[in-house]
């Protein structure tokens, strides 16, 4: 298996390489550049030209690309044009915010979705099933930002239970108050993501359980007089978890993907919000780095999922 994993990791290099060329090329096709927004009546256009020239924006795109690649190989993804900080530093700060919020939301999502799926599947066709099916159809069908606004309005503004934006209160100072303030600020966005993000797990898990319930081995177990609870816990549940497990690699890498809508609406400075502001500000170096990061996470997610599957399902071997 190790050989395969190493081969897969090595294969990522050309894949990322192709992705980086595409990203670089398409980013340049966008109208405007990082300096377009700088002009004002007193701006000297020669100065803007000089800034563009200094940034190498007039060189052919492949020349810019090779320069960027050379730096990237040495771990330098360049400076953010707009934030005037190294790209890696900015991503590092934002990644921490995104990671903790996503982790909390993933935990909450599973906590909501798994019992929901079990209840629905165990009561197939009954009102409990209908209830959770309807719930998931609604949360899937309506754009999430509508719900986020609703949640902010109810829990943030009407009930006043939670802060409605940011990652930490400016009043919090010292390690412990900052820690608790961060958790407190994370709850509402993470909860919103979780409450409205159950549909994927619910669909797979519920239908997994329903499928497994009708399998021969379940009938055999029943015929042998194994208790229903044991059959459910030991056999059905384990096998029904496989589709979820197959997705788990993506869940892990998705912790750093960033939630664009939630972060923007909650004013939570993570990677998702950074991505949007970088695109609108034509921050090329940041856009390239973020898309590459996401590409890398996607590939890694696929690999992790395969490994996880091989671990939980003895029938599957990576070859």
């Amino acid at each position, binding site marked *: 298996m190790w050989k395969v994993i190493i081969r897969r990791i090595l294969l990522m290099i050309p894949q990322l390489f192709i992705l980086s060329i595409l990203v670089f090329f398409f980013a340049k096709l966008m109208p405007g550049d990082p300096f377009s927004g700088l002009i004002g009546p007193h701006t000297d256009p020669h100065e803007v030209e000089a800034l563009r020239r200094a940034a190498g924006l007039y060189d052919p795109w492949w020349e810019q690309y090779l320069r960027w690649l050379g730096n990237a190989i040495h771990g330098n993804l360049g400076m953010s044009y707009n934030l005037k900080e190294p790209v890696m530093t900015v991503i590092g700060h934002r990644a921490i915010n995104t990671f903790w919020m996503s982790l909390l939301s993933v935990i909450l999502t599973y906590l909501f979705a798994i019992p929901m799926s079990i209840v629905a599947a165990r009561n197939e066709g009954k009102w409990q099933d209908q209830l959770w099916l309807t719930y998931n159809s609604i949360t899937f069908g309506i754009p999430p930002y509508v719900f986020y606004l609703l949640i902010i309005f109810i829990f943030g503004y009407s009930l006043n239970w939670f802060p409605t934006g940011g990652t930490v209160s400016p009043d919090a100072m010292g390690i412990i108050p900052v820690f608790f303030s961060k958790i407190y600020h994370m709850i509402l966005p993470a909860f919103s993501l979780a409450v409205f993000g159950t549909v994927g797990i619910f669909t797979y898990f519920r239908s997994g359980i329903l499928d497994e319930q009708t399998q021969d081995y379940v009938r055999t177990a029943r015929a042998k007089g194994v208790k229903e609870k044991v059959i459910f816990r030991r056999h059905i549940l384990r096998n029904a978890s496989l589709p979820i497990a197959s997705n788990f690699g993506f869940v892990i890498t998705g912790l750093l993907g960033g939630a664009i809508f939630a972060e923007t*609406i909650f004013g939570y400075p993570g990677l998702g919000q950074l991505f949007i502001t970088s695109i609108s500000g034509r921050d090329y170096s940041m856009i390239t780095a973020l898309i590459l990061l996401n590409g890398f996470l996607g590939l890694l997610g696929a690999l992790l999922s395969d490994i996880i599957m091989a671990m939980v399902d003895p029938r599957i071997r990576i070859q």
Partner: protein
Amino acid sequence: CGSNQNSSTSTKKLKAGNFDVAYQNPDKAIKGGNLKIAYQSDSPMKAEWLAPLSDDATFGSMSSPGGGQDGLFFTNSSFKYINGGPANVSLYKDAKTATITLRKDLKWSDGSEVTAKDYEFSYDLTANPAYGSDRWTDSLANIVGLSDYHAGKAKTISGITFPDGENGKVIKVQFKEMTPGMNQTGNGYFLETVAPYQYLKDVAPKDLASSPKSTTKPLVTGPFKPENVVAGESIKYVPNPYYWGEKPKLNSITYEIVSTAKSVAALSAHKYDYINDMRASQYKQVKDVKGYKVLGQQELYISLMYYNLGHYDVKKSISVQDRKTPLQDQNVREALGYARNVAAVQAKFSNGLATPANGLIPPIFKEFTSPSVKGYEKQDLDKANKLLDEDGWKLNKSTGYREKDGKELSLVYAARVGDANSETIAQNYIQQWKKIGVKVSLYHGKLMEFNSWVDHMTTPPGSDDWDITDGAWSLSGEPSQQDLFSAAAPYNFGHFNDPEITKDLNDIDSTKAEDSTYRKAAFIKYQEDMNKKAYVVPTAYAINYTPVNKRVVGMTLDYGAMNTWSEIGVSSDKMATK
């Protein structure tokens, strides 16, 4: 808490449109209190306390309790420098110098003295490319030796000297030329901020913009100092014990970012004392929120319509008015201006936050303009038709459009994407122009995306594929429009070049114009000539508004209010809800 019976005892009853500029709260401020302010934005703020390295307008506002990135000069409501602030400036026209005198008790928030060197350091940050500032402008090259320093040809700035030493309080700036605009803030000829040299001198130039010393742990000179800066999100301010002026009433200020999607709900839930940068499109929801008084102020802003008349000669840095277009006829340009129903558009879409412009200088510069300037603010289709008739453009009854020498009067309108109403407004103007027989179509059949538009309009020499476009500018406190419309101005999108206008512009900046009556007359003549020649047509002035909670005492949007942060207070610990 507060009531609506404001202004009855007011001595200052400034108005902007229908809005009060200041909130006259009948209640008294309590001792202490915490003011909660938000700035509406969908991007995180970029905390950068050094003005030369900062170009984030959001943070520009959010840093103001700390002294606005360490601004030095007080100004009056007409944006003229006045004495009594952190520093005084005196201009000597014969010697071509400015003397800047820092107050004796001007200190940084760690108690150290603000020195002459700190003022020079601002120039270093701006002009030394190692710091990566994008604030260098042509106007600064007017300081002797500064462009050599900028180009790396000189090690020091010869035009900036310290009569009583680096650690003294006096700085002399030597100019090549003096202009009458130099006594207006934002003139760009000299810098208006200081930066703490001793505190920052050991930080490597390339690291300075992201150093904690300039982002989260800065030194400031204002009435408040930042106690906690949360990157991208918020700032908590407490009074600065070393502030030279009146001690603030408040115990603290928190200043946060609020996203556009949430701001109105936040206001309705009384989360903030006020929110900056609310959009015109939100006004209808904001105006009825209980517990708030909406203040307004004229913006330093003008929007206008450009005609494409020429190109920019990059080698000679000059506009050449040589384009073959019916727009070279003054009558056609005027007719298009008179055909627009600007007033009706503003009445329908602006919520009272924009007014038709009669000239190119907004009314906030009351010392330089006059309501008597006649512009294109009222639609006059008869006049427009008459102008075109006179010019020989005959209506072809079968097409409904005018023709001359067998050619149809057909133009391309490069309208920009702005808010949700942009397309409606553009189509409305096209319909109005149709009424006078001018066929106007949108550039490539649709609105232009903003970045594409900027590229298209600002890349020299300019392009031939559009005839009409809209533009808008934020203006500084010095209203001279050399940078916008002189023959050399690169952002003169239409590239007209008219000796009479050049003369008008030069007159505004001439030595004679040091006399303010003369300058006002020059500004009025310039606007009248611009309206007459109609190379561009002024569209609208804007009013910005701020909803203020009725517990706030001493709130004003007056540009001349210099002690607001010391004087502002709250009348209760709880927000007003009625």
